[in-house]
């Protein structure tokens, strides 16, 4: 490939290859090689960064401001850290509407309060009209490590818990773009996952927020790193009626849709029910479900399998290429 294509940023195979073939070899170090959403550093700090190029910048249920706080905060939380501080770097396009900018800053403020983080440093740049699409944001986050993910302790019988319904963020973006002539009441699920933090001290083994690539990609990637298979049941996966309708209409597989406020968790077998109860206590987790488990009696190690509605078995692969660019 002689030029960068849009596909590189999609979170699919091209991006994974890029990281494996260019990023890791160039910046060799044991911290980076974990490729966790946030990296753990001595003494007990976690650090992460994310850039936001979502198009459009306003969508039902949020905007680029809400996203840039929650996305980064969630990376810390699922990596076992309590989020504390954010940096905020703004790249603004000449001509950006002042009222829009104020709205976004206000969203950032509100989201930061909800996520209990402080914006403590930042930067502002402006580029010429036509050289940056309205606004791009980078946030880096620092948090205090409360635990480290332990995928190596995952055993058959451990349960897979989903904290809520899938796919609303992606569909909210589609709606906001006016693509496909769709109309729906769907709102982005963009939200901070702070309510999951106490689970770390209670022994949760692993968490990821379900972003680009969707549930199927996130779980396939986990499956590839453990000597067991993961089995989830289609019947148990929570979807809102609106998402069900929109995905069937468009012929999209909802298992690959990105969210911005949902996580998938591996809970030790004996603690799963209790953890589910705790998750459900929070309004953001009210639709949480145990959707599957780790298994060694079905499938081969490294596989992610789905039991379909009619009892058939299906192998789920990680997303190879994204349906939509610039959803986060």
């Amino acid at each position, binding site marked *: 490939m002689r030029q960068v*294509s849009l596909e590189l940023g999609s979170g699919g195979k091209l991006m994974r290859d890029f990281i494996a073939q260019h990023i890791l070899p160039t910046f060799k170090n044991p911290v980076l090689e974990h490729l966790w959403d946030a990296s753990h550093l001595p003494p007990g700090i976690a650090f992460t960064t994310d850039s936001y190029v979502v198009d459009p910048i306003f969508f039902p249920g949020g905007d680029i401001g809400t996203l840039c706080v929650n996305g980064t905060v969630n990376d810390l939380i699922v990596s076992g850290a309590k989020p504390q501080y954010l940096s905020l770097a703004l790249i603004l396009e000449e001509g950006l509407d002042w009222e829009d900018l104020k709205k976004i800053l206000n969203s950032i403020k509100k989201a930061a309060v909800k996520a209990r983080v402080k914006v403590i440093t930042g930067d502002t740049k402006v580029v010429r009209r036509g050289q940056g699409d309205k606004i791009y944001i980078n946030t880096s986050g620092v948090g205090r490590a409360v635990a480290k993910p332990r995928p190596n302790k995952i055993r058959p019988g451990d349960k897979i818990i989903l904290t809520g319904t899938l796919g609303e963020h992606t569909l909210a973006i589609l709606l906001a773009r006016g693509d*496909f002539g769709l109309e729906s009441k769907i709102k982005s699920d963009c939200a901070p996952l702070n309510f999951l933090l106490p689970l770390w001290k209670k022994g949760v083994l692993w968490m990821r927020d379900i972003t680009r690539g969707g549930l199927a990609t996130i779980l396939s990637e986990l499956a590839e790193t453990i000597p067991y298979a993961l089995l989830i049941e289609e019947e148990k996966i929570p979807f809102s009626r609106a998402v069900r309708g929109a995905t069937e209409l*468009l012929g999209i597989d909802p298992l690959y849709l990105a969210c911005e406020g949902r996580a998938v968790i591996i809970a030790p077998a004996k603690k799963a029910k209790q953890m589910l109860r705790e998750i459900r206590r929070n309004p953001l987790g009210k639709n949480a479900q145990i959707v599957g488990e780790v298994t060694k009696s079905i499938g081969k190690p490294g596989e992610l399998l789905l039991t379909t509605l009619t009892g058939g078995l299906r192998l789920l692969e990680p997303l*190879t290429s994204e349906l939509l660019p610039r959803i986060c």
Partner: protein
Amino acid sequence: MKEYRDKKIIRALLKRIEEETQGLPAPVRIMEVCGTHTMTIHKYGLKIMLETAGIEMLSGPGCPVCITPDEFHEAALDLVTKRENLVLATFGDMTRVPTGKGSLQTAIPAHDSLIKIVYSPEEAAEIAKSQSEKEVVFFGVGFETTIPSIALTVKNAASAKLANFSVLSALWLIPPPLRAILEAGETRINGFLYPGHVSVIIGKKPYEFIAKEYGIPGAIAGFEPSDILLGICAVIDQIKQKKPGVHIEYTRAVSPAGNPKALALMEEVLEEKDACWRGLGTIPRSGLRLKKKYSGFDAEVKYGLKISGKTSDQPGCRCGEVLKGLVSPPQCPLYSRKCTPESPHGPCMVSLEGACLIYYKYQE
């Protein structure tokens, strides 16, 4: 609606099929023509359950992404990567097909050009209307289900004198390749499951030659699992009674005469042509192109594209035989070794309705 997917009903239908196939030479081989049928059969785990009940399902050539030769994709790629100010509007499925020149998914458009995924040909025409400074090309690939919509969009574009709009068309007809497959006599087929939505447009008459000239029964089925199983029951009935015909299972959507309005539109805007199908070769009168009076909206004419329709498959790729129901995906040497969903070598692994991708995704 949910009842069409009800477990109890599906089990009861499978039981009936198993009973009915007793006494018939096993296995009964039924070709499902349409890619969406293939997908439903695998998605609901029906393939294995049908095998137990004495039915072997063969995938047929009804996957438009699978049978469209690379040259069309390469023409689309050339248009959007070499011409400025051009919007290439396409259905999502087409963007992942790998060709010698790459795929639309990883293509880098020329300055001020864009690849846009659309849901309807009308969306493409609307882009042309609202962005008159851009040339808009709709990459229109499909069978009879989609063809009338494309025809209507072109007709409307002509009335509106939408000079910046055109269609790069790869339009295919379902009945001719079925005849070609039967003529070749390479596959033993005991019955057909005809595509429900193609039949909404064309009705049952175009399939009657299969019953009359080849004595092979068939049923037009809907896309829910119980539709498919009911359709298979109807085929077995015809086999047992030695009365081959064309049964309509999908009565809630298909009329025997099809959709006369849609057919009239196709007649008005399009004309038949000989077409080269990937894997099947040239089949007479199996494709459609825009009539001369609409040639201003034909991208091939407008941009002087030279599409011979020949295909250049990867060495070892047996997509062609898969499309004819001659081999099943695992019999292709590339399947799951070199050719996987992550790095597909042929269209059967790329298309969401491709037999190889479906087989891979739903293997047990």
